[in-house]
């Protein structure tokens, strides 16, 4: 098994290098913003365009041969030198550090909640197979899988924001930070705080990640991101649990008069939880990453997905590359952890030959 884990880890590393190489080759095809700017500037100033472009290329290091640029790119990625974002006028790394907490704020609860809720519904559905409740759960799972996250978010915003007026359509990004821009968990601030720009009130209100106003605006995006994930976990948990519902040891337990609850918790959930735990890390992570990317755009959450969209629109190449690479890398790590956990947790599988 040790050998398997080593091989699997090496493979993840190899895959990362391959993906970085593909990204480099693809990104290399795109005309650089700076060069186009230099071209434009030269045309305006009446300077020879060719010379200006050449000079700009020299300055940016693009005049070097392909393999040198490739090695430099790879080294920079691993050293955390991720380039410069023109959109935000700061290093890409700074942008990522600023945006990731916003994504985590709803992404993390979504992963935990969807795993727990999905498993519970799936187990319930499996134990009550072919009853109305099972059919309802399966039907809802289909809805969850089929509904496009970004559209669902829009519909909820229209219902709860436009028609009912319960939530604000815009996103209040300043509420989680104190007036000087540092993240706070819970604090109070007066109406001079940037979060209350258009409001006028006396006294102080809560700000911070755990403030009621922030939690309220987090409900809808978390829910939307969860729908697809709950449905997948539920389907998976149901299929997994069904394998044990009719198992001999469950029948034995039943005939000995063990209560239903104990059977589900001890005899079905236990063996079924191994594959469940592992898919939580890999697949659900991927789903949430994909879902959150679009959901952030719908709700206007200034996380990594919105940063990516703005980078795409403005052709901010360095930022596009990193915002796509980060979820990809997280997914690779998720798969790696999934496989290793599986190998450790399930001793029945023999990895000797692979």
């Amino acid at each position, binding site marked *: 098994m040790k050998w398997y884990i080593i091989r699997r880890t090496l493979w993840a590393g190899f895959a990362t290098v391959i993906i970085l190489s593909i990204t480099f080759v693809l990104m290399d095809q795109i005309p650089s913003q700076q060069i186009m700017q230099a071209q434009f500037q030269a045309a305006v100033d009446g300077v020879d365009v060719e010379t200006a472009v050449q000079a700009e290329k020299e300055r940016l290091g693009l005049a070097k041969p392909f393999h040198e640029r490739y090695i430099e790119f790879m080294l920079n990625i691993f050293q955390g030198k991720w380039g410069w974002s023109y959109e935000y006028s700061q290093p890409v790394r700074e942008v990522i550090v600023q945006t990731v907490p916003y994504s985590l704020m709803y992404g993390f609860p979504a992963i935990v909640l969807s795993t727990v809720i999905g498993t519970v519904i799936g187990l319930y559905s499996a134990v009550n197979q072919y009853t109305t409740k099972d059919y309802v759960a399966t039907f809802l799972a289909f809805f969850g899988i089929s509904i496009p996250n970004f559209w669902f978010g829009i*519909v909820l915003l229209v219902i709860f924001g436009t028609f009912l007026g319960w939530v604000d359509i815009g996103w209040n990004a300043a509420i989680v930070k104190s007036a000087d821009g540092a993240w706070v968990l819970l604090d109070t601030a007066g109406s001079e705080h940037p979060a209350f720009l258009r409001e006028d009130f006396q006294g102080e209100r809560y700000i911070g990640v755990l403030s009621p106003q922030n939690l309220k605006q987090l409900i809808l995006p978390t829910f939307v991101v969860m729908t697809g994930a709950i449905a997948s976990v539920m389907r998976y948990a149901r299929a997994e649990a069904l394998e044990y519902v009719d198992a001999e040891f469950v029948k034995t337990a039943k005939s000995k008069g063990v209560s239903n609850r104990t059977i589900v918790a001890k005899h079905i959930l236990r063996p079924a939880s191994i594959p469940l735990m592992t898919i939580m890390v890999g697949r659900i992570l991927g789903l949430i990453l994909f879902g959150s990317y679009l959901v952030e755009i719908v709700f206007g959450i200034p996380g990594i997905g919105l940063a990516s969209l703005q980078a*795409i629109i403005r052709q901010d190449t360095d930022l596009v590359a990193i915002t796509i690479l980060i979820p990809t890398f997280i997914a690779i790590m998720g798969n790696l952890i999934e496989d290793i956990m599986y190998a450790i947790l399930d001793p029945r599988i023999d990895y000797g030959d692979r």
Partner: protein
Amino acid sequence: MGEKTDQPETDGGTPQEDPTFEQVDWASIDSGETPRRKKEYVWFGIVSAWLIGVVYDVYSQHIAGTGAAEFPVVGIISPVDWLWSITLLVFVYYGLVPLAENRRMTRYYWKEFRKNKAAVISGLFLTVIFAVGVIGSRVLPAPERTPGLENQPPVWGSVEDYVTGNDCPGGTTVVDGVTMCQGSWAHPLGTTSSGEDILRASIYGMEVSMQVGLIATLLSITLAAAVGLTAAYYGGLVDEVLMRYVDIQITFPTFFLFLLLAYTVGGSLFVLILIFGLFGWGSSARIMRAEALQRREEPYIQAAKNAGASSFWTVRRHLLPNISNSLITAASLTIPSIILAEAAIAFLGLGDLTVASWGRIISGGRDQLRTAWWIATIPGVFLFFTILAFNFLGDALRDALDPRHGGSGE
């Protein structure tokens, strides 16, 4: 699908004596190549005509440099339409023709299929979407930007007059001192913020979604079957190389791979379809390889090999038909994921801005949820129900065809 069945000929006359085993003229069976049937000739003819057309089009565009080739009757055929036509032809030849030839089995399938209400409704819904999309986008005028007709509400609604453009074909009413613009039957589902009719844009979007879903799935499933079967049949080094490539492709999360490719090389609908078709087949190939590995050890494969069948023949005639269950299931579950991916890419603004994709219209209404809610929500209804219907259909097919899912017996 499409393999021959040896049905005894019935001529309605005096019943022929069944030939006993000794009477069978094995020499004539062995020597004569099985004659190709009429429909195969027709099919080869159609495919060759299509190929010649494509080659001529490519030649006149890229080698002769005289622009897109003009064909009699149909005029200029765009690259997407070339792919679209062959996709539909393949669907007819491998899907509908065998069903029409094999009435008895068709009746049996229908009887089984009818039990699943959700799948029947989904099938009907998709047929309607397909027909309305294909016919509608040829009959109806294309949705155009119309200054003055911006943000018209749907026919049952009304909205403050300042939200809409200057014109208001549905007439205006004054409620509580505010002039309200009524929706009109001229634009039953309203218009977008650039004055495009949403109903017509949605109908055009139906064909786009179907095109993307079906063409890319055909490409993707063909590749997956080719790779999966080759890997399983030859094994050894071939298997290792092919499946390691698949591993890399799967490691890259599909959506982000599509996103990266759409950003760097994307643009036109044609390129998007190619991206979806050429880079999303990894998991289907794995499923088919796993299935083919089991089938490879079956006696009939060994018998075919011992009888001197070539590798291609064995794979094409014996392996492929026997994994068609997995193939159909994989195909029916690939379609919705690709339609969703296209909508997402279009929503991000990376799609083809000249086609009326549902995702593009939804994204256009994103900034106006407060004032013109119908722009972003209505096209999504079509998107959601199309994906839902494909998922239902795929699940029903899997239950019916895949013995491992144990749904068929109950």
